[in-house]
């Protein structure tokens, strides 16, 4: 989820319950932290997308095999919130924990809050610049900060909102006896400091930033005025030093809690504020917040650039419910200048999280922090997670899910129409269209289940990725099929060749048998010339086996047969000659015995 591969076993073995929490917040299908958690009737939880994909294939719960169906999927909002927020703070919490547990296993994080604080600070402020900043006054902060690069400045401008948070904390601490402790707590958050100076800087450089800055400034001011009720902040800042220390012990989570509190506070407060109105740009026809019009025209539209995270197709916007538009405007107002950065931080790219990761030089982290603190204003994840709980207004319009279709009952035309309605491409054959529709239905409906739904444009992007993957898959399958075909063909050829050889051998054996027969039938010829006899005996064989036309095979068969024929012929010849000799001998003996008795001893002596 956070870019890296996470696993419950990441947690140190000492914190077994954290492992348990982690593993229970994971989807059994994808093994990630739950995204848009849903619950089935058997009370097993899954990612909405995962379970939808599974139920497309099979109608049973993956965990317990109880029969179920897509219609039984219910959102599990509380669990989703828990999983989301756990995912947000996971890396930080883990690194903090690791720093405490691993190098000095003796130190328990809760028992020695001071120590922890010291340690984390040492680590965070290792660069001399930063160290100086921490110990110095606000003015030095500013000088240091102004020497930082543009990215940082931009960042600090975005994290303006932090400013206000800090202001509250400070204003409160001023009146509180435990001021220093409280301050320390808030001090440990780098972006706050940075943003503070950033703010001053901004007031200075406002001329350069022109109306844009003004406009951005405005909502934060209005928000600033709203939660002036210090009482809300009481539990978290200073008033009770003990609680502050406990919070400081897990300095990272302090930030988190801190931010979430601010968030809830501001969200309650800023509900009536819906932000500037959206208007259509006269040139590119994109939806833009009214005060932003000039900046949009000058800097982006006329310059030919796009400010993607800020504008949206107006036609798309006017179809959205008012709450979404309001959100969108809010998002725009606070994330404009660092569009790419904020974007990445919002997709929870996961600052690998030092204990106070915000302080690290990673430029994304301050932005991330700011967005976390001001979720109601800047969460470009779409809706604000907390908002549904606080505003009955935005909870009401739950987007309607796309109904499942029975693709076999639709013809091409109907299917194409359905795709068109959803704004999907209509190319390809029916199977592709059906698959495309099914895929979009899955991700769209899953998105509906999410407490932080993505904008439709992102779903479309996902669809493009899917489209490419599908094409690639088809190609791979096609090439595999071709390779298989080739293999089969070569195998068939080899088989045929083998068959031919076998046949030829068999013929040769037959031929050999024939040669044995033939010399007996014609004794004189075998004696006269072996070569001729074999060839003559093979002529009929060859005629019989017209099927065997493989020249090599027959040639070898000939050689084979000839060899055997020779051997047999020799054998037979020898036997014959012996027989003949015996016959002649016998004949001669008979002659001698029958004609004269006298020459007989002479022949025998010979």
């Amino acid at each position, binding site marked *: 989820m956070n870019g890296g*591969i996470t*696993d419950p*076993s990441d947690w140190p073995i000492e914190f077994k319950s954290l492992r348990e929490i982690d593993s229970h917040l994971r989807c*059994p*299908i*994808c*093994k*990630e932290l739950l995204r848009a958690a849903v619950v089935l009737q058997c009370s097993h939880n899954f990612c909405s997308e*995962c379970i939808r*994909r*599974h139920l497309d*294939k099979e109608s*049973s719960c*993956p*965990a317990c*095999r109880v029969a179920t169906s897509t219609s039984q999927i219910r959102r599990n909002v509380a669990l989703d919130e828990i999983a989301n927020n756990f995912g947000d703070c996971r890396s930080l919490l883990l690194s903090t924990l690791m720093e405490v547990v691993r190098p000095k296993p003796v130190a328990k994080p809760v028992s020695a809050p001071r120590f922890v604080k010291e340690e984390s600070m040492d680590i965070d402020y290792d660069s001399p610049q930063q160290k100086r900043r921490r110990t110095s006054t606000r003015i030095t902060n500013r000088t240091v900060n102004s020497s930082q690069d543009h990215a940082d400045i931009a960042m600090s401008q975005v994290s303006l909102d932090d400013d206000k948070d800090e202001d509250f904390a400070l204003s409160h601490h001023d009146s509180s006896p435990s001021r220093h402790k409280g301050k320390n707590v808030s001090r440990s958050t780098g972006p706050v400091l940075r943003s503070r100076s950033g703010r001053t800087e901004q007031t200075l450089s406002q001329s350069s930033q022109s109306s844009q800055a003004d406009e951005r400034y405005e909502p934060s001011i209005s928000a600033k005025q709203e939660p002036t009720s210090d009482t809300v902040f009481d539990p978290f800042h200073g008033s009770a030093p003990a609680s502050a220390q406990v919070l400081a012990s897990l300095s990272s989570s302090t930030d988190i809690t801190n931010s979430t509190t601010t968030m809830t506070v501001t969200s309650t407060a800023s509900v009536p504020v819906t932000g500037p109105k959206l208007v259509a740009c006269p040139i590119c026809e994109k939806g833009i917040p009214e005060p932003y019009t000039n900046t949009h025209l000058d800097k982006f539209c006329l310059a030919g650039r796009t400010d993607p995270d800020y504008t949206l197709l107006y036609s798309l916007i006017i179809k959205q419910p008012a709450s979404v538009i309001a959100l969108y405007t809010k998002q725009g107002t606070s994330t404009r200048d660092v569009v790419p950065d904020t974007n990445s931080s919002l997709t929870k790219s996961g600052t690998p999280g030092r204990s106070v990761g915000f302080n690290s030089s990673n430029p994304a982290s301050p932005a991330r922090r700011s967005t976390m603190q001001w979720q109601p204003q800047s969460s470009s994840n779409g809706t604000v997670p907390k908002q549904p709980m606080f505003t009955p207004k935005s909870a009401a319009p739950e987007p309607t899910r796309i109904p499942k279709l029975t693709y076999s009952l639709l013809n091409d035309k109907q299917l194409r129409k359905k795709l068109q309605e959803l704004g999907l491409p209509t190319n390809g054959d029916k199977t592709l269209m059906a698959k495309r529709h099914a895929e979009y239905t899955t991700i769209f409906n899953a998105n509906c289940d999410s407490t932080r739904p993505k904008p439709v444009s992102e779903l479309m992007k996902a669809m493009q990725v*899917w489209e490419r*993957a599908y094409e690639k*898959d088809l190609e791979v399958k096609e090439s595999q099929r071709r390779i298989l075909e080739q293999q089969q063909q070569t195998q068939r050829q080899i088989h045929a060749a083998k068959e031919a050889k076998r046949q030829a051998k068999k013929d040769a054996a037959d031929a050999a048998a024939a040669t044995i027969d033939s010399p007996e039938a014609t004794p004189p010829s075998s004696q006269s010339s072996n070569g001729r006899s074999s060839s003559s005996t093979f002529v009929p064989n060859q005629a019989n086996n017209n099927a065997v036309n493989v020249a090599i095979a027959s040639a070898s068969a000939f050689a084979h047969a000839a060899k055997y024929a020779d051997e047999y012929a020799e054998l037979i010849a020898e036997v014959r000659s012996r027989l003949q000799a015996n016959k002649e001998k016998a004949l001669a003996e008979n002659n001698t015995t029958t004609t004269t008795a006298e020459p007989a001893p002479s022949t025998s002596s010979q």
Partner: protein
Amino acid sequence: MSSAVHRRMLKEYMAIQKNAATRPHLELLEPIQEDDLLHWQAILLGTADSAYEGGRFKLDIVIPTSYPIQSPTIRFVTKICHPNVHFKTGEICLDILKSEWTPAWTLESVCVAISSLLTNPEPSSPLNCDAANLLRCGDTAGYNSLVKMYTALYATGDCDEE
């Protein structure tokens, strides 16, 4: 879609490496090539009290791109005499690899299941009828000696030879 497979395979790979010590009968479970997470191999060890003792059985695992919705394809590379394993092709008849597959399974758990299949054969759905018939007739002595012979014949040497 396919990237989801790769993420999950990477996750499983790391989990396998982490708890390698907890499964004594699985000598190896890893991708054949580092860059191809969809083709794995595993080596099962015959359990000490069974007729497969001393044998090392190599498995070939192919992961479909729709994993874990679809089950992996697993077959024995080492020849093995078992009622539920095809003697020639190495195909395994195991319900969780076919109809009973659920995405909640992992490669590791499947390998453990196959390992336990070795000691608990299911002769009623055989792929190797001769071995199954011996068991069905109650000739465990004959079955065990047959298995021992084949294990000694094929599975005691180097797994890489077919």
